[in-house]
């Protein structure tokens, strides 16, 4: 889906680990949660309550609210505005509704 620029992976780029639905995922320092999820192959971040259809990030800049996920137990966080941190626990719907 998305891949890192190979020429860009300098040794100084720190990796960190967080979990998505209990699955361990590696992210880069400086990633937002939304970027880290996309890098991990996730594209469906939430189920729209009004449309009952999956949605994923659209704007990546805090405007569209389509990337709302549960972070460390707090629901409805904007994944694109939250820097990913080591040990963070992110929950997204898996193959169905999650709310």
């Amino acid at each position: 889906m998305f891949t890192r620029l190979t020429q860009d992976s300098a040794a100084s780029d720190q990796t960190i680990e967080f979990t998505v639905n209990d699955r361990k995922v590696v992210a880069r320092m400086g990633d937002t949660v939304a970027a880290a999820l996309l890098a991990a192959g996730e594209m469906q971040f939430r189920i729209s309550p009004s449309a009952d259809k999956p949605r994923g990030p659209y704007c990546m800049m805090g405007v569209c609210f389509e990337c709302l996920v549960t972070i460390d137990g707090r629901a409805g966080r904007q994944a694109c505005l939250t820097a990913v941190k080591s040990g963070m626990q992110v929950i997204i719907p898996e193959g169905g509704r999650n709310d």
Partner: protein
Amino acid sequence: MTDPVTNPHWDVVVIGAGPAGLAAATLLAEQKTSVLLVDEQPEPGGQIYRGIERLQAGSAKAHILGEDYVYGADLVRRFRSSAASYRPETSLWHVTPKLELFVSRGGVAETLQASQLILATGAMERAVPVAGWTLPGVVTAGALQILLKSSGLVADQPVILAGSGPLFYLLATQCLAAGVPIAALLDTAKARHMFGAIGALPRALTGAGPGYLSKGVKLMRALRQSGVPTYRGVEDLQILGENRVSEVQFRSGKRKHRLKAGIVALHEGVVPMVNATRMLGCEHTWDDRQHAFHPVTDTWGATSHAGIRVAGDAAGIVGARGAEHQGGLAAVGALHDLGRIDSARRDRLASAEMRALEAHMTARPLLDRLYPPRAEIKTPGDDIVVCRCENVTAGAVRQLATQGLGPNQMKAALRCGMGPCQGRLCGDTVAQIIADTRGTAPRPSDYYNIRAPLKPVSIGEISTLGERR
């Protein structure tokens, strides 16, 4: 730096760490004013210079994004070495008329008091309501650029780019340079706009205009020579898929096409972010050339509301370099209002900023005329979802508009604009459908009333206010 927590009162609070906000905050700090810069993102730079502090000189990313991006590093460095305070990952959700600001960071709310407020909240990409635009895998062109800038992430499956405008062609060339597999470029610009734009050409040849034009010509040449399949005059774009994007269908000239796609990136220009100024009740106007609302401001960014200024794209699209100088002018205006400088000193400080701003604005009217949003985006067909949050179609909005209902009555009847994005993605479309039904240009009253909170805040978050007091 002053500690933001122990000092809740500021001479000036600036919202937004893009070029306008950075320039304003830096200038104010250099003039010994207590200034706090509040920004939603984890890092300074705004959307245009995102991730700039982590950019390695000479890296592939620097090469792909180009010199106009690298330019921002200096702006951020100057801000960082100033005495301005900075609070990242912090959202503004309410402002009282007396400039008490309510902000939240990581679920903890807090109030700040400002004597002057500068809103440098920038622009957002115009909504592109087409069939299937809510499918996962459909993003804005800006979103792809943000992933590249802040995480070095590029798509590795067929991308279809659909749209037009300077940022669109720039993103396309950056994708090429990054090795993104572009399946097709669907150019929605109309050739006939070329003729209408000629009148704006003489002015575009003055100031910094020729620089912008030659960059544009180079971009277009690179795209033509790239061999990427390009379709021109694209209309009737539909994005297809079940739970994520799989194909696009469109018309180019008389022919219909259907192509496979992994990711679709849309772009039809940018519009000012008006939520905060709307909530504050600042006077707004519809700009016929930019096809968007913006707050009414003077040379110093002053709005109709005392003590509140707007700088940069949030006051009307001026581009990154123009925004930087508007930030300077707003800062100088605030200094004058605070009584720190007299009019003569204000005018001296402002003269270079004004000249530079004018130079960067010469090509803007030409760009506005070359890439106006097409009708099917402004007033979509009845089946198209316009409010993504509440799944409301253009047809539903149109039906109520025909009955003479306004935007706030529609909110109540249809729930459009009532979801978490609070009308950011549908406000302009709803206004344009109402205006189109009436047969006039949009009026400021065709846009939703925006009320606090600007961002969804939980009761728990609000209760943290009491604990701090």
